[in-house]
């Protein structure tokens, strides 16, 4: 059984079909690229998978369970986590607090235990403090743990958002243009990090990216969409030579 499978997924906005007949299969530990020209519906796919939009048709199976209609936070708890194209951090909070937020549903102490600061509170808070620091260490950000998120350089903000998404302990991580706005060197580093994350956490990653060369470099499988419809699926080699894809990118 695939980790994630969509069947004829589609959504209309006021009669306009943004995504349609979207069928995709993601296996455990797979690294897949989702590419397509501007406005092709890539982010809309992410919004459908994470429950931000309710699809007009079709279904989404996560480990065999249909998650259509579930709230975004429920889907996160079931194991799909994401980053945003236009970085959404908790800007005025510290870096470590940003990460701690994402441990919320993994913690158990009740509201009362938190208010009374029962031993359980201290134990769990200590645990997630260490976990958060460990995670930041993986991204070489432990020195920035107490910096305010909005003051970080752009690249670090992107990394923090990925760290935060990882803290929710996902099975599938959706990255929306993680390299946007980075210079080639930063992009290179980021791609290494993404590879590393996949291996270290043993998770599947679905990645939206504009830079074709970059996606080709790291993804095992690539899905190309245009006008909300999948026009090609395959290995980087297959995609490179696909006429439809070339047409979509360069114009017929």
């Amino acid at each position: 059984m695939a980790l994630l499978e969509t069947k004829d997924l589609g959504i209309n906005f006021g009669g306009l079909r943004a995504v349609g007949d979207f069928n995709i299969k993601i296996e455990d530990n797979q690294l897949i690229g989702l590419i397509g020209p501007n406005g092709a519906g890539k982010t809309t796919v992410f919004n459908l998978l994470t429950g931000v939009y309710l699809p007009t048709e079709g279904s989404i199976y996560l480990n065999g369970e249909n998650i259509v209609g579930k709230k975004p936070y429920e889907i996160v708890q079931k194991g799909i986590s994401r980053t945003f194209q236009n970085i959404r951090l908790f800007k005025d909070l510290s870096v470590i607090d940003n990460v701690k937020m994402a441990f919320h549903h993994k913690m158990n102490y009740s509201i009362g235990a938190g208010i009374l600061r029962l031993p359980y509170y201290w134990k769990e808070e200590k645990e997630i403090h260490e976990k958060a620091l460990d995670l930041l260490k993986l991204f070489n950000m432990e020195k920035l743990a107490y910096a305010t998120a909005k003051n970080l350089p752009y690249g670090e903000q992107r990394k923090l958002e990925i760290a935060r998404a990882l803290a929710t302990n996902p099975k599938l991580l959706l990255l929306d243009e993680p390299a946007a706005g980075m210079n080639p060197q930063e992009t290179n580093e980021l791609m290494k990090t993404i590879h590393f994350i996949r291996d270290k956490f043993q998770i599947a990653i679905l990645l939206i990216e504009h830079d074709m060369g970059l996606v080709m470099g790291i993804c095992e499988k690539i899905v190309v969409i245009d006008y909300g419809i999948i026009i090609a699926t395959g290995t980087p080699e297959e995609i490179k030579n696909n006429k439809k894809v070339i047409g979509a990118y360069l114009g017929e």
Partner: protein
Amino acid sequence: MEGIIKFLQQLINGIHVGSIYALIALGYTMVYGIVQLINFAHGDIIMMGAFIAFISITVLKLPIILVILISVIFCMISGILIEKIAYKPLRNSPRISALITAIGVSLFLENLFMLIFTPNPKPFPNVLKVYQINIGNLQISNLTIITIVVSVILMIGLDFFVKHTKTGKAMRAVSEDQGAAQLMGINVNTTISVTFAIGSALGAIGGILYSIAYPVIDPFMGIMPGLKAFIAAVLGGIGIIPGAMLGGFIMGIAESFTKGYISSQLADAVVFGILILVLSIKPSGIFGKNIKEKV
């Protein structure tokens, strides 16, 4: 038959008050549209308009046209000054700080006028010989007709101004995107001043019409009509000019019917109830666009 007459009578009363609310609501909505601020002091502009008219009539004994003109000009200048002194420094601050400042300005104006004029209510002089026109069994006062006509003319004028004049277009551009408007060579500060001036002018006229309809004025008279007009603006979709007009009429009619058929004490609760109902169904007001935050 009597039932129908009563119904029509209430409807007309409602339109009468509603057109005043609509005039005041326009000031709220225009200011909100351009600086995203609930201008709490707008209710006090109404009060000032009424008081200036009061002095012009009783002390200066001026003819009605001059009375209106002086009151309008005074309020326009006040509106511009309020914006320049109190709101402009806060344009880049958290919006709630600007809101508190607006409340501060409101308290300031109320208490200033209370110091000058004492808190005692004053009878507003009869500037208009009110008589009733009978249409069948239906009675309409000339005041009602004048109020409605004046309001409608002003609204049409405003609509034309905003849509077809250069300044009006600048206003719309600034409310759409201040930064972009500035880059297009629009003088943002002037445009904001003009918006406050127009809103205040309409408020002054609204204040005078209100005082003629309810001929007792005091320094706190602006609070309730101000609040209701603001709700009218929200009801119609804040920032949207036709919305404010429609909202004003809905408020006036709802209030008039509640007073006529249920209880005058509950009128305020009904008015707020309508607001809650509308916002529950349509969170951005009747004409408001549902702007979903882009994810």
